[in-house]
């Protein structure tokens, strides 16, 4: 792909017309880096008188409309409405305690601290002379110089005045300067008054340096410190000089001699070896401080913003920006890497084709308006001449400019061959394809060590030429000779006497020892190569149209492309910059390829100045100055690029913590740093001042004691910490200028006090007290317990003794009672029929008799009987008296006695009648009808089952009170039951049974039948695995099972069965079972 520049080309006959342009202004420094200081939109005619800067970075500007404070983003104004002595601020100074001292034109002095204005009242209020300068010396004394009334010196001990009456050489003081030796130099109309306040003798206290001492002018307007410790003096009419301490005289630098720039309003020597001068006649200048090499002045006086020459004051801030004060506005100038010259700066056109600096430092600029030469007169003012400017029939398009070894300029053109121009006379000679050249489109020219000129053409290959008797004798080289392509963009002669050709489509060709070696896409990434240069290490660098930049070290090609950081991979400009930097330029900007530390080569990016349209560098429109500055021609003007690190690059913003809020309430930064536990919502405001690029400032913060790491970068200028727990903290914040330069952190330490109840001096005694109380309580309790225990033991002992006594008594009584009961048992047993009686009356029978207690409530009655009619029978009764034990025993005695009486004495053998009689007798005996005895007595009675066996009739008559009779027939395993009446003998009866009689039952029996009479004790006994009652059902089953056993055995079986059933359980009632085999 062929490179087609974006400009048209015409052919025009040449003739040179010299146009002398008069003083012009500002070709030297770009206007792009001059910015207006923000004093407020719409503010007009604000005359700037003075500048200063505080430690936080704020710029203070004294004007005729008050005192401004700028932080880069906003400004604040202090004027009479805020308490200032006047709106005319003639001088300003910041003391060590950061108080702003402002002097007024009416002689007053105002102080500003923490945004509060106060009047300085110690100065003589009748003195209305303007305060010209304010200075703080190393002893923190404040010097107030006036126009016409000498100097006031404010000390802690008081204020004194230095006047012409007491040694000062003049009362009109322009300036003050504190010398490193501690003296104060005052600039006056009578020279410099050197004041040593510590001396008492007048001769030692005041000393004058004047024209007698070599000072060039007695009217001294400004004194300030310069580089290398020099003291610079600006005078009314003699410009600037400096005091040489070794020679003890005044001298001038080369560029300060022959001063013709008028009165110096202000000056600013800086560390770069230049001095900024605000002159009345020529505006703003930049002059060299060199004593060895003369450098012409740089004029900075016409600009789109800076139209007024009259600059009153200058100031350099921490960032090395230069602040300028005029009659109407304040500006600041930020030095940068890139300066742009354009039509606004006086260039004839913005479309730059080529550029060259000749050996005299004259600038040759080719544009679409022709060729412009910018020379400088002795005063450094530009003198402009124009060549080839005519546009009709068409201007000559000069695409390359080269100064040969004879100091002639060779101009390669588009379509017009080359011109050899004599820079002194302006005469030129044309060489075209008709008289020597291979082709009339010459884009690049070089010269080898032998003095041969090489012309690179579009279409004609390369030509090697030499002037012989005024004729250009050329040898042509094309692809036939090994050249990569006949379209050659650039030719370069390296330090090893090789010629390099960048071609369009043929890669890069190297001509050495009469032979071409061509390198193509295979090794260099593209066959279209644009630009070539060489570094200090003799490596060859070139740029191509596809992959970026290559470096050839003689053996291999190394690519530097996107990975290196090059933003455009078809850069048209490649040139060596300062030191070993390789400068790459393309539409997107500029990169500098540089090895940084131990890392590989990196591309450091730079941007073109802001513009509405994109910058397009012109091929081969580049030139490298001896100092390493690179000139690049673009379609927006001429760029001067310095890859050298700028002093301002490493300057970080000034960071400060501007405010703190506790629970959203403002808190003074100088107030206490201890906050109560409830004031634990903190908001910190902070500000990083960086005037050069305030919008690029970034912050990181960290609360030590709460956060582990620093926060990520942020633009925010505040941070809040809600609900901080008690503890000690340090808030830190730092700022960067957006280019990775971070400031040291600003910090604020504070403590959130714990609540009262968490403080050690409260906790410790509280806990101690609590512990003591607990201990005391425990001790008391223990003591009480001990005491109670002792008392209890005593009581227990007493009670035990009592109990033992009572036990003894009880035991005795128990024995007595038991003995009585046992005796009662013997008595009871005595009345019961003996075994012999039972055996005689019912021989085949058993009686299972098991009292619950010693004395039983159950008893059995067996007797033979004869009725009144003479019938003989055997009466058997099984009786269960109410209760058991002693009461049952007593009842049994009564019952036995009454039965005996009824059956034996009254000869009643009918069971029912027996029961009836017994019932009456029981009731009478126990007086159960007498209600006065209480309810309990009326309950006593008997459950009886009584039968009368009449042997001669083989009949049994039965009656029962709550008790049945069972019969099990021989050989019939079945229990027949005859139930008794459902009321007892004696005791309570239901109402319907009150008059009821007992019922007799009669049945005949066969021999071998068994009848059984039993009380409820056996069936009611609990036992078994389920601890249930034995139940009559089980008894019936048992009787069926054993009925055919001998009666004695049956009795044993019943006993055994009960023992097994009962187990370990207690017997709950008396048991009585009588079994009779009939």
């Amino acid at each position, binding site marked *: 792909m062929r490179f087609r520049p974006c400009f048209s080309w015409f052919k025009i006959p040449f003739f040179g017309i010299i146009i002398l342009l008069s003083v012009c202004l500002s070709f030297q420094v770009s206007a792009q880096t001059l910015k207006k200081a923000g004093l407020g939109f719409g503010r007009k005619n604000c005359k700037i008188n003075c500048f200063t800067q505080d430690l936080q970075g704020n710029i203070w500007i004294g004007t005729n409309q008050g005192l401004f404070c700028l932080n880069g983003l906003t400004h604040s104004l202090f004027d009479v409405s805020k308490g200032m002595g006047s709106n005319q601020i003639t001088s300003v100074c910041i003391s060590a305690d950061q108080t702003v001292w402002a002097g007024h034109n009416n002689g007053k002095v105002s102080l500003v601290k923490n945004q509060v204005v106060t009047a300085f009242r110690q100065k003589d209020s009748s003195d209305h002379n303007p305060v010209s300068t304010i200075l703080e010396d190393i002893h923190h004394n404040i010097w107030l110089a006036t126009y016409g009334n000498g100097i006031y010196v404010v000390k802690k001990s008081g204020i004194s005045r230095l006047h012409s009456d007491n040694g000062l050489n003049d009362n009109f003081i322009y300036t003050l300067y504190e010398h490193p030796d501690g003296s104060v130099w005052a600039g006056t*109309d009578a020279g410099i008054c050197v004041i040593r306040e510590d001396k008492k003798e007048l001769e030692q206290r005041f000393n004058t340096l004047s024209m007698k001492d070599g000072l060039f002018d*007695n009217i001294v307007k400004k004194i300030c410190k310069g580089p290398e410790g020099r003291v610079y003096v600006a005078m*009314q*009419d003699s410009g600037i000089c400096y005091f040489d301490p070794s020679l003890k005289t005044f001298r001038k630098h080369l560029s300060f001699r022959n001063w013709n720039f008028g009165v110096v309003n202000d000056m600013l020597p800086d560390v770069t070896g230049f001095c900024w001068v605000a002159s009345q006649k020529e505006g703003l200048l930049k002059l060299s401080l060199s004593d060895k090499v003369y450098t012409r002045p740089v004029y900075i006086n016409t600009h789109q913003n800076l139209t007024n020459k009259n600059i009153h004051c200058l100031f350099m801030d921490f960032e090395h920006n230069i602040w300028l004060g005029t009659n109407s506005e304040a500006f600041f100038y930020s030095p940068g890497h890139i300066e742009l010259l354009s039509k606004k700066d006086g260039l004839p056109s913005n479309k730059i084709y080529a550029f060259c600096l000749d050996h005299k430092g004259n600038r040759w600029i080719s544009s679409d308006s022709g060729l412009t030469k910018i020379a400088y007169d002795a005063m450094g003012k530009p003198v402009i001449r124009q060549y080839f400017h005519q546009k009709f029939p068409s201007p000559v398009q000069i695409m390359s400019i080269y100064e040969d070894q004879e100091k002639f300029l060779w101009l390669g053109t588009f379509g017009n061959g080359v011109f050899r121009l004599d820079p002194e006379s302006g005469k030129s000679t044309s060489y075209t394809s008709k008289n020597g050249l291979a082709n009339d489109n010459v884009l690049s020219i070089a010269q080898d060590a032998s003095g041969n000129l090489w012309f690179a053409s579009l279409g004609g290959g390369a030509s090697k030429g030499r002037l012989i008797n005024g004729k250009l004798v050329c040898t042509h080289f094309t692809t036939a000779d090994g050249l990569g392509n006949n379209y050659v963009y650039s030719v370069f002669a390296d330090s090893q006497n090789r010629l390099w050709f960048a071609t369009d489509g043929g890669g890069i060709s190297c001509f050495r020892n009469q032979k071409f070696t061509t390198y193509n896409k295979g090794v260099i990434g593209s066959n279209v190569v644009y630009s070539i240069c060489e570094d200090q290490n003799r490596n060859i660098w070139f740029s191509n149209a596809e992959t970026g930049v290559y470096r050839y070290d003689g053996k291999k090609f190394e690519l530097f492309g996107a990975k290196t950081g090059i933003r455009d991979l078809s850069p048209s400009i490649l040139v060596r910059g300062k030191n070993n930097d390789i400068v790459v330029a393309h539409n997107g900007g500029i990169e500098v390829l540089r090895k940084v530390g131990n890392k590989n080569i990196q591309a450091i990016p730079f941007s073109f100045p802001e513009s509405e349209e994109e910058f397009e560098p012109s091929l081969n429109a580049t030139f490298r100055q001896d100092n390493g500055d690179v000139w690049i021609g673009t379609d927006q003007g001429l760029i001067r690029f310095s890859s050298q690190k700028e002093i301002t690059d490493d300057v970080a913003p000034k960071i400060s913590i501007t405010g703190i809020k506790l629970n959203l309430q403002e808190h003074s930064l100088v107030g206490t740093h201890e906050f109560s536990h409830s004031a634990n919502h903190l908001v910190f405001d902070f500000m990083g001042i960086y005037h050069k690029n305030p919008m690029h400032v970034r912050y990181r913060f960290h609360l030590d004691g709460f956060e582990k790491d620093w926060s990520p970068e942020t633009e925010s200028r505040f941070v809040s910490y809600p609900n901080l727990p008690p503890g000690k903290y340090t808030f830190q914040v730092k700022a960067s200028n957006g280019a990775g330069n971070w400031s040291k952190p600003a910090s604020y330490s504070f403590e959130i006090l714990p609540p009262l109840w968490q403080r050690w001096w409260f906790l410790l005694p509280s806990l101690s007290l609590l512990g003591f109380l607990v201990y005391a309580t425990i001790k008391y309790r223990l003591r009480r317990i001990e005491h109670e225990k002792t008392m209890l033991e005593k009581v227990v002992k007493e009670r035990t003794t009592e109990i033992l006594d009572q036990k003894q008594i009880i035991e005795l009584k128990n024995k007595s009672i038991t003995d009585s009961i046992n005796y009662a048992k013997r008595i009871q047993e005595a009345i019961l029929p003996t075994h012999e009686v039972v055996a005689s009356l019912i021989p085949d029978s058993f009686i299972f008799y098991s009292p619950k207690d010693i004395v039983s409530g159950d008893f059995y009655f067996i007797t033979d009987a004869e009725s009144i009619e003479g019938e003989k029978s055997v009466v058997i009764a099984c009786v269960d008296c109410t209760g058991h034990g002693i009461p049952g025993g007593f009842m049994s005695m009564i019952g036995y006695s009454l039965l005996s009486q009824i059956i034996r004495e009254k000869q009643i053998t009918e069971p029912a009648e027996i029961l009836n009689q017994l019932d009456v007798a029981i009731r009478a005996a126990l007086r159960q009808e007498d209600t006065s005895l209480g309810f309990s007595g009326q309950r006593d009675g008997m459950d009886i089952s009584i039968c009368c066996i009449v042997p001669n009739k083989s009949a049994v008559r039965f009656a029962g009170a709550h008790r049945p009779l069972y019969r099990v027939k021989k050989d019939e395993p079945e229990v027949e039951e005859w139930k008794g009446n459902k009321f007892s003998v004696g005791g309570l009866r239901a109402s319907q049974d009150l008059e009821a009689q007992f019922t007799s039952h009669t049945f005949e029996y066969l021999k071998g039948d068994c009848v059984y009479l039993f009380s409820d004790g056996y069936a009611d006994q609990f036992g078994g695995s389920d601890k249930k009652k034995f139940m009559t059902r089980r008894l019936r089953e048992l009787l069926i099972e054993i009925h055919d056993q001998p009666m004695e055995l049956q009795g044993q079986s019943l006993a055994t069965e009960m023992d097994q059933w009962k187990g370990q359980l207690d017997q709950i009632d008396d048991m009585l079972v009588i079994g009779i085999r009939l």
Partner: protein
Amino acid sequence: MKTPIFAAFLLILSAFAFQQETIYSGKEGTVKFESNAPLELIIANSKQLTGLINTEKRTFVFKVKTSSFQGFKNSMQEEHFNESYMESDKFPSSEFKGKIIEETDFRVPGTYQVRVKGLLTVHGVEKERIIKAKVTVKNKQISIESDFDVLLADHEIKIPKIVEMKIAETIRVNININMQPKS
């Protein structure tokens, strides 16, 4: 006997005469100003410059009536000068007073390049100025000549935009005055 008395008399007389010669005054000095704008050249002058110099104290004062300037191209120009720009009714005169910086001995005849510093009051507005002047002492007369510029904006003399091309921002002023000892 008479000689000492006569000598004393001469001494007193010379002292008196010397004292008399420290104050110099002038009445008919000339002031010329020139405004050289791209579209118009305005020149006017006044012959009514008055002044006083104290050679011992090295102080001076010069004054000129604003309305005394003549030589305008036309009456309209003069009218604009007095009414619109200088406002002669409000500010009838311009004045320059101050001190001579160089410690020149004006008793010695000769030509001296001095600088004078003082307050230049034009259009009622004061401006501190240091101006170069050539002082010629001859035949007990002091001639003063000076050329200096006056920036109209310094004295709040506003130039309407419409006439920007006709009135220069900076006016060139020339003064010339002969001064005699004040009797």
